[in-house]
């Protein structure tokens, strides 16, 4: 095992298909990147040729476009609007059900059942995001039963980025671009196939089941160069030094009004964010009113009723809500979970309809002395 984890293997496209077949035979639902409605999303995958081969994504503030590549690479893109949280923390889940009886109600939590997922194509920032959500849903005082089950059954095939988008800043957040931990297997795409690294016992078993050979030294070198290229391409920066104290010292900074004048409070940033975990519970009535289901669904601190109490909404301005999101993500999250809530994936920058860029906002807020 110790030897295997040190070794770097080489597989071809055929080998990757064999890996998918093996995991499917083990009872996993394999999900990975696919093209849908002009974006690279995560969905069920059974064949390697379903991957977005020959496509890349152009992400900039307020911009996301697919573009053809000049080559036929399978993973030559970064991140799209989906994140893996939609599988581990699904957007809509039943948490409880009440049935009317002759003298009142019976209340039951649903049986916790789930497919066993295998994720194909998890980037370094996304591995970090999963670790961040682990802190929220399973590593605290209370465990979310569905997340816990899905996480414990999960098989992760990570993919090292070989290029970076203009919105990427994982290097500032210390989360990438290289996949270092938290995976069962990790791939690096090179000219003639994929380098394969093993990260767990389950990963070793899967690797044993597929045709592979030791990577040649020039193949390993090519992988290294490509990973290095991704790092070199990252130009966006967020200064995280003392960021908690710097932001919390600026809760009354006039710049919050400036952001609020641009922010639509649309909640896109929180929905594409791979770590945002806020949710609400809705009552859903059966037509006869004899059965009531409580559903948990994704919510956002940008929605005006999010902070509603009997006396009204606590944060009834966009200024207050943007401030809550940014300071939670980058400052108070550290107090709550011992880690930043931001992994530097850049989704909130690309998918903001008006192109608000949190790295710019932080630079403006934190430049100069606190007012």
């Amino acid at each position, binding site marked *: 095992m110790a030897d295997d984890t040190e070794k770097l293997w080489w597989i071809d496209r055929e080998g990757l298909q064999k890996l998918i077949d093996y995991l499917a035979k083990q009872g996993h639902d394999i999900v990975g990147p696919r093209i849908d409605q002009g974006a690279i999303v995560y969905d069920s995958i059974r064949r390697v040729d379903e991957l977005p081969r020959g496509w890349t994504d152009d992400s900039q503030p307020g911009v996301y476009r697919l573009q053809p590549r000049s080559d036929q690479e399978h993973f030559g893109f970064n991140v799209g609007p989906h994140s893996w949280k939609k599988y581990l923390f699904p957007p809509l889940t039943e948490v409880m059900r009440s049935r009317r009886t002759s003298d009142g109600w019976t209340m039951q*939590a649903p049986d916790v059942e789930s497919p066993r997922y295998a994720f194909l194509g998890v980037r370094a920032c996304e591995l970090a995001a999963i670790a961040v959500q682990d802190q*929220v849903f399973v590593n605290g*005082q209370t465990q979310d039963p569905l997340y816990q089950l899905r996480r414990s059954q999960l098989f992760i095939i990570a993919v090292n980025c070989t290029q970076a988008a203009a919105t990427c800043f994982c290097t500032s957040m210390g989360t990438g671009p290289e996949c270092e931990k938290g995976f069962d297997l990790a791939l690096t795409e090179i000219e003639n196939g994929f380098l394969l690294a093993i990260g767990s016992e389950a990963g070793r078993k899967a690797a044993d089941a597929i045709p592979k050979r030791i990577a040649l030294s020039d193949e390993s070198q090519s992988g290294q160069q490509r990973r290095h290229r991704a790092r070199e391409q990252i130009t966006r920066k967020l200064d995280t030094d003392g960021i908690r104290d710097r932001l919390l010292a600026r809760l009354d900074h006039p710049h919050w009004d400036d952001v609020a004048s641009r922010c639509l409070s649309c909640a896109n940033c929180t929905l594409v964010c791979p770590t945002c975990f806020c949710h609400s*519970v809705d009552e859903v009535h059966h037509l006869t009113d004899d059965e009531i289901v409580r559903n948990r669904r994704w919510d956002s601190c940008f929605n005006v009723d999010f902070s509603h*109490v*009997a006396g009204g909404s*606590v944060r*009834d301005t966009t200024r207050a809500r943007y401030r809550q999101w940014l300071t939670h993500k980058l400052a108070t999250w550290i107090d709550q979970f011992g880690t930043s809530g931001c992994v530097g994936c850049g989704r909130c920058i690309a998918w903001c309809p008006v192109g608000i860029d949190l790295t710019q906002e932080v630079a403006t807020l934190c430049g100069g002395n606190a007012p």
Partner: protein
Amino acid sequence: MNTAANPWLSHTAVIEEIRPEIESVATLILRLEDSNLAGSYRFSPGQFNMLYVPGCGEVAISMSGPATDNGHRITHTIRTVGRVTQAIEQLGVGEMIGVRGPMGTPWPIESLHDRDVVLVSGGLGMAPLRPVIYALMEEPKRFGRRTLLYGARSPDLILYADEIDSWRESGIDVHITVDRATDDWHGHVGTVHLLIDRLASIDPSRTAMFACGPEIMMHFSAKSGLARGLARESIWLSMERNMQCAFGMCGHCQWGSHFVCRTGPVLRYDTAEPFLTVRDL
């Protein structure tokens, strides 16, 4: 799968008694249907339950009865103010409600042993403090001087008015003030934090303060406590925010670094102070 540990599961309880209090406020006594659960149910003063009306939703309500009670007798004092509390108001004795709890942090009563304690209450803030009063009455010798400062909007809105004599008889020094006096009112008039300023003598090194009421009232009470020489670490508040999961996951109750449902509702003043003065936080 083990659904017993599901933190979302509410447990059915029967409404045993409804006692009208002041205007639009009533005290409900609940009994958990499952007698094993009822026997093992314990709470500490300051904690809350999520009360559930199927089809309407949940609301966070503090326990207002003695902490010596178990799940055969859970006491909540509820003001009808929102959607769920309006639905609760419609329920009668013998009807059913869901209970999930106890949740949140308690008042640190253990830390009061051999110390003087000042309870400061505003309006319905009396309800989460009443279990503390019962604890102070239960074992008077374990505490130093015991004082309750209580502010109500008007004399007819003094909660638990019929119990206050028994609190006084047990040796608790009770001072009441109202915002608007009536002709027959001979007590204090004005906001409750002024009573802290007027307390005859106070030994700040051995005094702790628990404050519960509207945010602005707790803010000024803490300021008055500090002015009387109390340490920040000796002042405790109970916060209110939108709560849905009540175990620190749904995010609604966030207030600065706090999940009010989990690190609160009872917070030590030094951890609340940085956020208490920021508008719309």
